[in-house]
């Protein structure tokens, strides 16, 4: 669909807003509906949209396979790192209370990083699944 002017222009207009909305969902997860999973899915949706308009090979240059795979692992690692931070500051595993002098602020800080980890992994997994499916069609042609 690279040659379709309307789609290209609309895509260019929309994708930044989709990403911005993902960030809103990510950071608003603390106070209302939303969170890392949803935000990760929205970022992945933006990526899928991009790949549909500009082609899979262009998308893979923007977000290479190796990076996608690393994202899947890095998100989980970030999650676990928060868990270990709890241990490091003298609490139990995944203890957010000890992450700040004020336990409530500690909870905020803990969930912030946890949700970021979730978002990274979810986005990575969804993009990976999309790449695998999209690539399968190309192999057959």
């Amino acid at each position, binding site marked *: 669909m690279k040659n379709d002017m309307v789609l290209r222009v609309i895509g260019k207009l929309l994708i930044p807003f989709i990403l911005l909305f993902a960030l809103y969902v990510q950071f608003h997860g603390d106070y209302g509906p939303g969170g890392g999973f949803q935000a990760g899915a929205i970022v992945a949706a933006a990526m899928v949209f991009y790949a549909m308009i500009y082609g899979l090979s262009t998308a893979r240059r923007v977000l290479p396979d*190796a990076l996608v*795979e*690393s994202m*899947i*692992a*890095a998100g*989980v*690692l970030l999650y*676990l790192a928060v*868990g*270990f931070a*709890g*241990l*490091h500051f*003298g*609490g*139990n*595993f*995944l*203890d*957010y*209370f*000890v992450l700040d002098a004020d336990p409530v602020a500690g909870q905020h800080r803990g969930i912030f990083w946890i949700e970021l980890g979730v978002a990274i992994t979810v986005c990575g997994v969804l993009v990976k699944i999309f790449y695998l499916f999209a690539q399968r069609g190309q192999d057959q042609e």
Partner: protein
Amino acid sequence: MNFAEHLPALQIVVPLVSAPLAVLLRDRLAAFVLVLAATWTAFAISILLWLQVGESGLISYAIGSWPPPWGIEYRVDALSSLMLMLVAGIASVVLPYSRASIEREIRQDKHYLFYALFALCLSGLLGITITGDAFNLFVFLEISSLSSYALIALGKDRRSLVAAFQYLIMGTIGATFIVIGIGLLYIKTGTLNLADLSIRLQAMTSHRPVLAALAFLTVGISLKLALFPLHQWLPNAYAYAPSAVSAFLAATATKVSVYALLRFYFSVFGETAIFQRLPMEDLMLVLALAGMFVASTVAIFQDNLKRLFAYSSVAQISYVVLGISFDSVTGLTATIVHLVNHAVTKGGLFLLLGAVIAGMGGVTLARVHGVGRVMPVTSFGIVLCGLSLIGVPGTAGFVSKWYLILAALEKGQWWLVFLIVLSSLLAVAYVWRFVEVAYFHAPRADLAGVREAPLALALPAWILVAATIWFGVDTSVTVGSAATAAAQLLGVSR
């Protein structure tokens, strides 16, 4: 930070951390070393936990410092510490084996992913065992199941894809049933903590939603543990998976599901609710007997050794369920002892079959003609494990059958003793199928030059074979821990 205090969390987290790190490393040797270190550490932690439980009786760990029943609790008692040791121990033996084994079976650029999946599967299985929270149990069940579907699909034979898909469908139905059951319990009680659930359920065990939850959980977990007639996924999954995966899953996955069943039956619903107000005793007895005879008979007619011993697994699981159906301390002791003994025996057996595949290129009966002459040591090991499946004195299998028979006698059911011995004769028949082709036929001309398996494959297999013999002679660890665990399980409800 005091390590001894955090052992329950580290038990899960150490193998879990190694999985994403292995993916990031993208190098098969580095990933292997890392996952191996994590697995052995997990085994060491499980031994420490087992010793701690022996002293203090029960360890409770509050994840995130949210006290139970609000937060997720990790809870280690006699049964879970034994299972943790079993799962981590089997993984510690299988992983070194897998390095030499997957060399022949999986493309080299996927090896690091194999190790990551193995670490995930291990942490899932350990998690089911250690958690004291119903929903957390479901999550860990999914972690272990999803990784095992992928592990099975890595098999060299293209039929492994179909086998993995079949297991995926059946496993997902099972998992859905389990989560529906947990959901119903949560609606009724407002809690997910297993210990808290058992207290709150006491007053409402005959309420219909609770009974529905029990039914969903029973069917869901029975699918996962391959209780006859819900075992259809198992033979293909074990037969076409890579050798190391067959061995690991045969030795741990169904066993951990049995653990989940025991947890829900005895620690949550309580023995009175299940066995005195409902006809579960007869139901499980009938299914177990049917499984013992049908699966053993089907095993006799298989022409692929991996499938043959997979059907034997279904039959052996039936003995485990038979032990549960007695609803007595001796019966549960038999169940738990057989969990351990069968895990060790089948683990060893599948590792040896993997060695045969490495040498002979397959394990169909037609191909392994004369394997007793070209690979005498490996074949001897298979025969030893086979003797344990039959229940010959001096092997681990004898100890489990002995306790099963004791439990049957305690109930005064002489006819059951007869049936247990009769079903062992069927085991003689399927083990004989191997002995016949291995020792009484000449090897195929093109396979006559095959040599004994390399040490990297033989050594881990023989560790498990040695354990099979050891647990048949010295029963202090297995029967001792199992008896404590059985008493604890029944003590909760009395």
